[in-house]
């Protein structure tokens, strides 16, 4: 008896839709066993992780709050991933975006100008795009692998952030906490749903999703990007370049991550903190994949991942789980998802004897 994969003639749509759900169930079961093995109340942990986020209006509104940045960044990253340009440094681009956006309120803490907030958002987006642009320039000019460069740029961005919040931008009246002054009202995003922290960045992220959908549907632009990234030589014959795919992918990814950074400091945080990101840049990679690199799928997967973040916060209290449990769960999700993805193009076959 032998087990092997056989290529399907057409991609299986049912599997495509079921893959994330299968991954979710398998990740749940595995983490249940894992948490139990670590001596944690596994049932309580899963309840907190998966159900509690949907119980009560406040919990649910916090899910919506977290969904914004995850969705925004994942939409930007997916455009690159589809073109085989792997920007895995959204975390750093978010941090630089947050830093650039924070410059205005830090230097004008009494500012009241109505232009402050729009300027912060623009600065954040530009900062993120610039940071990713370094990787794009190095890849297209020097052939330097963008995976490693974006990752290294993230580690550097973290150090820049630490330097700023521990040094020049530290709030002098902040009891030595690594954070900036509290931003003036003119630097804060308007709240969308009264009584919650959900702000206008959520509709912003939804608009970005719409734009990503239009870009994917616009066949020629999408096609150029795809071929430029996946088959550079073929693209050159056709007259569009690898360089363009690299630049567009990284700039869009950096822009969305930078925006998300600006939205964080101008939104729920209201100041620049050392923990500005809580890992959104990394989690967005998983969101992008779980959403099938599809703009509509990403809206759903961002919602799920946001719930997982809120659930993780709850589980920290209720089941004494460290925050790392969320990352274990995320890793398991991606592992099982990548496995189930294979069944879209293949089916598993039992056969006797050795294959031809």
């Amino acid at each position: 008896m032998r087990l092997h994969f056989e290529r399907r003639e057409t991609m299986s749509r049912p599997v495509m839709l079921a893959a994330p759900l299968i991954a979710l169930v398998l990740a749940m079961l595995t983490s249940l066993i894992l948490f139990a093995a670590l001596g944690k109340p596994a049932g309580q942990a899963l309840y907190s992780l998966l159900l509690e986020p949907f119980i009560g209006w406040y919990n649910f509104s916090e899910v919506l709050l977290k969904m914004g940045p995850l969705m925004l960044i994942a939409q930007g990253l997916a455009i690159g991933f589809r073109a085989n340009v792997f920007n895995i440094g959204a975390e750093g681009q978010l941090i630089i975006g947050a830093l650039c956006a924070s410059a205005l309120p830090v230097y004008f803490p009494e500012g009241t100008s109505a232009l402050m907030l729009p300027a912060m958002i623009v600065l954040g987006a530009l900062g993120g795009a610039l940071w990713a642009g370094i990787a794009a320039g190095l890849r297209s000019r020097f052939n330097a692998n963008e995976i490693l460069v974006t990752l290294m740029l993230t580690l550097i961005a973290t150090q820049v952030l630490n330097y700023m919040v521990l040094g020049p931008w530290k709030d002098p009246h902040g009891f030595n906490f690594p954070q900036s002054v509290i931003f003036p009202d003119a630097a804060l995003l308007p709240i969308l749903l009264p009584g919650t922290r959900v702000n206008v960045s959520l509709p912003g992220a939804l608009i970005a999703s719409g734009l990503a959908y239009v870009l994917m549907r616009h066949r020629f632009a999408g096609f150029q990007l795809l071929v430029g990234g996946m088959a550079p030589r073929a693209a050159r014959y056709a007259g569009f370049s690898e360089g363009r795919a690299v630049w567009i992918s990284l700039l869009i990814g950096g822009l969305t991550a930078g925006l998300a950074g600006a939205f964080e400091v101008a939104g729920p945080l209201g100041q620049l903190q050392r923990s500005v990101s809580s890992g959104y840049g990394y989690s967005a990679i998983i969101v992008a994949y779980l959403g099938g690199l599809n703009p509509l799928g990403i809206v759903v997967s961002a919602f799920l991942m946001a719930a997982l973040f809120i659930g993780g916060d709850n589980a920290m209290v209720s089941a004494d789980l460290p925050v790392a449990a969320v990352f274990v769960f995320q890793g398991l999700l991606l592992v099982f998802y990548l496995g189930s993805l294979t069944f879209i193009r293949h089916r598993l076959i039992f056969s006797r004897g050795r294959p031809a």
Partner: protein
Amino acid sequence: MTILAFILAGTLAAATPMLLAALGELIVERSGVLNLGLEGMMALGAAIGFVVTYQTHNPVLGFAAAALGGILLSLVFAALALGFMANQVAAGLAIGVLGQGMSSLLGKPLESQTLTAPDTLAIPGLADLPLIGPVFDQDIVVWLTLLLAVVIWAVLNHTKLGLILRAVGENPHAARAIGFRVLRIRLAAIAFGGALAGMAGAYASTIYTPLWADGLIAGRGWIAVALVVFGTWQPFRITFGALLFGALSLGGLIAQAGGIALPSQLLASLPYVVTIVMLAVISSNRRRMRLNTVASLGQPFSG
């Protein structure tokens, strides 16, 4: 100890975790597989190595357990990359996240606990030399890692095993046609890489800085991936690169010795900045990269 000897000796120790992990990744990549989960495998090895050494007071057991943990995580990667023909970049990232999460989870109860570093092994004669003597007085893992670089060089270039591994990486279809089990050889390479990454993590957490702090790998797994590229897939060039980065990560001490006051964040960033610069400099020679790179790197193979 003189400052010079201190720096040279520290360089070797600082280079060891990166070198050990990079040598494992070298074998994986030479077989045609790109495993980007190095950071996660090192983190997991660091946690397991620390916990086991802390409980048993037996560093050998700690290293063995860390190697086993690295192998297990690398087998998850192998299942995805080889069994399910998944995208290797995504599969590597997945086990990277998983490994780092598991590492934090396992290490949490021992936060800020310390271990006593094992004794060093002085090379007779050389260790008594004036000025540079301390360089030859290192823990045994440093020596074994350097020895391993030589062994890997010899195996890759002068044995049938090395030839088979290279054939599988350069042209898996041809290797299969002449009867080699491509997937089995790749599986063995991935497991070997996992074992070395796990031990590299254990070295970092139990010998180099024998104190548990979450996230202590701090990008060294990624630097190890970069080292394989810098070293253009050659063990001695990778060793040289690792030593360079070992020296860089001592930048803080060197600067202090020189009486230069720089923000610690700038010094911490130095290895990352140099990684980017080196990557650009070495990759920009496209012809040389094409000559040295592994032809089937990152491409799934279905037998």
